[in-house]
């Protein structure tokens, strides 16, 4: 019996000859952020751990409540900084050097296709798009891995999603993944891996693939994964400044006779842009059915959709236009280097001239942290990943999720809008 790509990576990392139900596997890179890592440090100290397994394979990325929103947030960042100094951890990243962890860490080449990565953040599944086995875990897991270099995993089964057909105009990775979550539900892949494959995935850019694996968690999945190809390596070379090591990507494929729990075919040919309605990501509808939804705020950014291709399509729709009077539009480039690239390509000027506000890289409003909190009755359309009750602020506010194209078009009209209308 063959193995899936996830099984191959777990087998290698377990150091065993065959996979059992559970593995205690060697981790290639582990990380946390300014809200999960402080709790990990507390666990690390109270456990009495005296050293870290490898100071180069641990990272702290400050991205959630930064630039520090208040004294407590500043204190948490300082806690990580002091700990990093004490244990000579090189990869402590504060605002000027990082940005949102699931975008930024790809720029560092600290791990590569085929790596086993854990992060104390649920969207760690993002790195599956480059062929990593990448799992979101909790703070205690991070603390234990920082000491032991190993983490326990139940070996997951996999569902294969096969995307075929011609991609219509305006359809992005976000639309594919929202459609898929709508189809299988928010626990449709519980404990399982979602492997995205098929000709439509091959044609999708790497950033669109990152958006898809990023949201695997929203279907309950353990992670998402996509076999890396030439375009993956070219992308990584570009964003790491050629720092990414050589990888034999031919080995990073699921075997033809690998066992899948299920294979789901999705024809993208007639797909319309998708929008998730309050208060679950699985509550998806085609954009045209929501054209009467008036908006108070639009957010374009996050680990899901704050990359350069996301800003590029938003800028192409906003160029020479004004955002609807009275609407708040917040653009958040995911990392400083994406911000610089957007500035170089003229997008930042387009955003500012159209009446958007451009924020420094941060998770900020996505999880109701800061910089764009909603009040009672306010309605946001956001390119982020969750629309739970109170996610962006008041429990009486409403969040819709969409692609950057739909968000930018809606910014012009002030209501949920198909990009064709612009």
């Amino acid at each position, binding site marked *: 019996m063959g193995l899936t790509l996830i099984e191959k990576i777990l087998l290698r990392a377990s150091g065993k000859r065959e996979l059992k*139900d559970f593995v205690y596997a060697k981790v290639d890179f582990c990380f946390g952020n300014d809200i999960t890592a*402080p709790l990990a440090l507390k666990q690390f100290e109270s456990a009495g751990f005296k050293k870290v397994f490898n100071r180069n394979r641990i990272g702290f990325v400050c991205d959630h409540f930064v630039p520090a929103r208040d004294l407590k947030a500043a204190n948490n960042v300082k806690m990580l900084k002091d700990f990093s100094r004490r244990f000579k951890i090189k990869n402590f990243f504060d605002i000027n050097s990082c940005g949102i962890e699931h975008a930024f860490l790809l720029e560092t080449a600290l791990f590569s296709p085929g790596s086993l990565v854990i992060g104390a953040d649920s969207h760690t599944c993002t790195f599956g798009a480059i062929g990593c086995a990448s799992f979101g875990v909790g703070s205690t897991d991070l603390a234990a891995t920082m000491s032991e270099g190993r983490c326990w995993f139940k070996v997951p089964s996999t569902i294969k999603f096969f995307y075929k057909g011609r991609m219509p105009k305006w359809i992005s990775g976000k639309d594919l993944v929202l459609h898929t979550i709508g189809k299988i539900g928010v626990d449709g892949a519980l404990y399982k891996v979602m492997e995205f494959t098929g000709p439509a995935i091959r044609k999708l850019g790497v950033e669109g693939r990152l958006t898809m694996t990023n949201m695997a968690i929203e279907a309950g999945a353990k992670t998402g994964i996509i076999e890396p190809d030439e375009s993956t390596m070219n992308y990584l070379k570009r964003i790491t400044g050629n720092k990414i090591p050589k990888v034999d990507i031919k080995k990073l494929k699921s075997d033809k006779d690998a066992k899948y729990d299920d294979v789901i075919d999705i024809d993208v040919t007639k797909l319309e842009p998708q929008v998730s309605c309050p208060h*679950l990501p699985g509550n998806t509808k085609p954009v045209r059915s929501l054209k009467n939804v008036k908006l108070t705020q639009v957010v374009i950014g996050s680990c899901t959709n704050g990359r350069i291709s996301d800003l590029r399509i938003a800028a192409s729709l906003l160029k020479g236009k004004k955002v609807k009077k009275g609407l708040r539009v917040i653009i958040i480039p995911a990392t400083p280097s994406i911000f610089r690239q957007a500035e170089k390509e003229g997008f930042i000027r387009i955003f500012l001239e159209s009446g958007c506000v451009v924020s420094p890289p941060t998770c900020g409003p996505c999880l*109701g942290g800061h910089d764009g909190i909603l009040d009672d009755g306010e309605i946001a359309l956001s390119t982020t990943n969750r629309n739970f009750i109170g*996610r962006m602020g008041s429990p009486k506010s409403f969040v819709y999720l969409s692609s950057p194209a739909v968000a930018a078009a809606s910014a012009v009209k002030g209501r949920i809008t198909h990009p064709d209308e612009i």
Partner: protein
Amino acid sequence: MIKGHVHKFGDDINTDDIIAAKYLDSQDEKFLGSKCMENIDPGFAGRLKKGDIIVAGKNFGCGSSREHAPLAIKGCGVSLVIAESFARIFYRNSINLGLPILVFPDCSKIKDGDILAVDLAGGKIRNLSQRKVYTCQKFPDFMREIIDSRGLIEWIKKRK
């Protein structure tokens, strides 16, 4: 043996419901506990008696990886969470932290306010209010080891 009153919740209770993100700059169990379920059930922490039990539908704890969620549940005095299914990271975090959880596919049989007596190791729930006994799914041996060690940290210390 765990004994307590039931507080019922529905399907897909997410980690933002359990503890809103604005409180995540705290690592204090008691403070997080005082804000538990604030968005969907204001006053929950105040009504709760120490030892009470949460009973929920499917996919409990979906959403973020925040360990502040099981910590908040522990911090407000809940002794056990029973659900039809758990989201993966919440499940893992609970085991790692030593928060007792049980998977029971027929949670609809249990009513808000019922008094349960639960034998965790045996996977038996006695519903004292309805005079019924239910059997739960057993944990795999590997997880049992961590649970019996009262969490991941103690499990690691034992291995050394």
